[in-house]
């Protein structure tokens, strides 16, 4: 934002400078994913620790991994946030203070919290940790945002129900950082206000136990009978995934400070592809707002990694019939993640890659890297590490060498056309 007024003003103590460029905030479900998210252009990543996050998952970060992640991110000037976004029950409260101190020690920049118990504890015991109010608090009006600002929070993640118009007003009225989700799956309920899983399976959704019961199939009954007729799809509460790639200028002009991508459970391929696309779009707009054009390959590239149907959520209208998933729309993606480039030999033009799904000579593949570098080719020459020709790369994590038509770089990804 070329807001000269703000830039010329001396920085007052305690007053945050507005971010020049919106932050691109990506999910990282593991250390490896963190590295890819940062390498592909995320300004910040959010991760889950061993406790208090809504994705209970074996891959969640240990403090040791957090430290390593923070060091890696620092090299790129990127930050690491930790989601502590559960609504705690009594039994969860005891360890919170120690946990937050550990996060602070590990160099974590911010926590994302919804429960005031955690918000307040962080402010008391870990003053260097920023506290960002989670979307789980479902904040969608400017006075509520004002409240949290006055409580000392530098950033509010808005509810996914907030419209573009409402975001503009919030930004105009309250001087606090605003983060919004721009891509990924979402609760169809108001965040925090769904306990379907508690009822169906005794798993607490607000502590990470959600089993996505909203996507299950239901029969809608009126007057004691089903409204379904032969050939009808059943009722569901499942929403299409959010995708705002077509509306980057709107989001930037509304003053959104942080663009958040959902998906801590998603693959490296997904995170790298989606981050790569949004990075390019944001950079292109900031470099030349007037000349900005949406590039069709951005939309295409998102489609190569994401197979769920997409929509724009509440930004422009209340989601209707078209925005929910009543029939199987999960088209298999036209591409599949095949390998990670670990080395490239300029002299021979051979890349060393680590296998992530089987491939063989004759297959059409694509290499891509940060900044939208992309090359398409057919696999012609492929050898093992000793140089013996290979008919197929069958084993996970197996290293093989492929002759590339264009130079590639370590951490570039290779996907295969299906």
């Amino acid at each position, binding site marked *: 934002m070329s807001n000269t007024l703000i830039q010329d003003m001396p920085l007052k103590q305690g007053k945050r400078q507005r971010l020049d460029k919106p932050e691109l905030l990506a999910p990282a479900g593991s250390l490896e994913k963190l590295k890819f998210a940062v390498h592909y252009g995320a300004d910040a990543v959010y991760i889950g620790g061993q406790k208090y996050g809504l994705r209970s998952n074996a891959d969640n970060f240990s403090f040791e991994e957090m430290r390593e992640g923070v060091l890696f991110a620092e090299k790129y000037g990127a930050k690491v946030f930790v989601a502590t976004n559960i609504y705690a029950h009594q039994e969860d409260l005891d360890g919170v203070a120690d946990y937050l101190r550990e996060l602070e020690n590990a160099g974590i920049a911010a926590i994302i919290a919804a429960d005031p118990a955690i918000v307040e504890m962080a402010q008391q015991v870990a003053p260097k940790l920023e506290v960002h109010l989670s979307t789980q608090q479902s904040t969608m*009006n400017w006075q509520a945002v004002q409240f949290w600002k006055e409580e000392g929070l530098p950033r509010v993640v808005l509810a996914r129900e907030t419209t573009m118009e409402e975001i503009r007003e919030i930004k105009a009225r309250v001087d606090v950082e605003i983060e919004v989700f721009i891509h990924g799956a979402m609760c169809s309920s*108001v965040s925090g206000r769904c*306990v379907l899983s508690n009822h169906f399976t005794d798993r607490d959704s607000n502590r990470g136990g959600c089993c996505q019961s909203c996507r299950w199939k239901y*029969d809608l009954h009126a007057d004691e009978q089903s409204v379904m007729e032969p050939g009808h799809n059943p009722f569901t509460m499942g929403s299409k995934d959010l995708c705002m790639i077509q509306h980057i200028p709107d989001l930037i002009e509304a003053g959104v400070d942080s663009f958040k991508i959902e998906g801590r459970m998603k693959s490296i391929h997904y995170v790298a592809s989606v981050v790569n696309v949004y990075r390019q779009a944001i950079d292109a707009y900031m470099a030349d707002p007037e000349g900005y054009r949406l590039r069709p390959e951005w939309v295409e590239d998102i489609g190569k990694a994401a197979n769920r149907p997409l929509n724009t959520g509440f930004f422009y209208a209340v989601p209707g019939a078209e925005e929910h998933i009543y029939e199987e729309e999960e088209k298999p993606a036209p591409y599949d993640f095949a390998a990670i480039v670990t080395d490239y030999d300029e002299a021979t033009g051979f890349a060393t890659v680590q296998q992530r799904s089987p491939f063989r000579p004759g297959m059409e593949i694509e290499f891509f890297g940060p900044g939208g570098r992309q090359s398409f080719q057919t696999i012609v020459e492929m050898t093992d590490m000793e140089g013996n020709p290979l008919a197929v790369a069958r084993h996970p994590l197996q290293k093989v060498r492929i002759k590339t038509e264009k130079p590639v770089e370590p951490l570039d990804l290779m996907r295969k056309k299906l």
Partner: protein
Amino acid sequence: MLIGESRFGMRQPGDILSGDLKSAVLIAHRLGAKVYVNMNKLFRNDELAALPEYLISITEAGGDAIVFGDPAVLMNARRHAPGVKLFWNAEMTGTNSSAASYWGRRGAARAVVARELNEEEIGDLKSKAEMEIQVQVHGATNIYYSHRNLVQSYLEHLGKEASLVRRGVDRGLFLVEAERPDERFPVYEDDNGTHVMSPDDICLLEALPELVQAGVDSFYIEPLLKSEEYNETVLKSYRAALDLWKRDPGAYKFDNLWLTSIQRLQSSERELGFGFLYKEQVY
């Protein structure tokens, strides 16, 4: 007594508009009852302008408390209804004593706790929160709330008449999950979105002494989706039980008639149960 209107409160069984607040409060006060006004909705920017006037009308009507979930209500109440008590009700997300105390220090006199807590958690919460707590003891519970119009969206998808949408509570719409054909989940849409309700009713009548001893200050009966006769009967049973306890806890004896009179009117499709009171949940 909890009253209000859907412009401000979530899932009111009927609207008592701001013009009628005064007479409603008068009637209740004359009978020795308190009136709490429900403002626990999550508000949007364009709904904020109505808050000050409504808060003033609650003050003028002599309302005994204002129930809030959205901090915007708290901010406005400090200015426009400074003399009226505040109760915090964030539905599913009122789960621990520190959060309750947090709102307590910001003006809330009472916390309404989540219906998904068990008895031990309720007792623990109460002992640490240093404020009044309210627990729902009877009726249906909301288990899913969305700002989407899910019934309308689905019917549109089917190409059905919009008239089938039937906005409002108790219009005979149910969801049945494919694997659980015996459970019927009431669902309805109103101006605030889509609400899915539990397929069974909680009934903590037999647990009342335990809850009283755990320090619960207020027992809430949810009247939604029930007939007047049913609600009256439920009220009478709980009233009788609490009065008997109050008179002499030592001589308290559960009267099965309290329960059977409710059971007699209970829909055969909705089981009465203890909700989450004795459950352990995982995550």
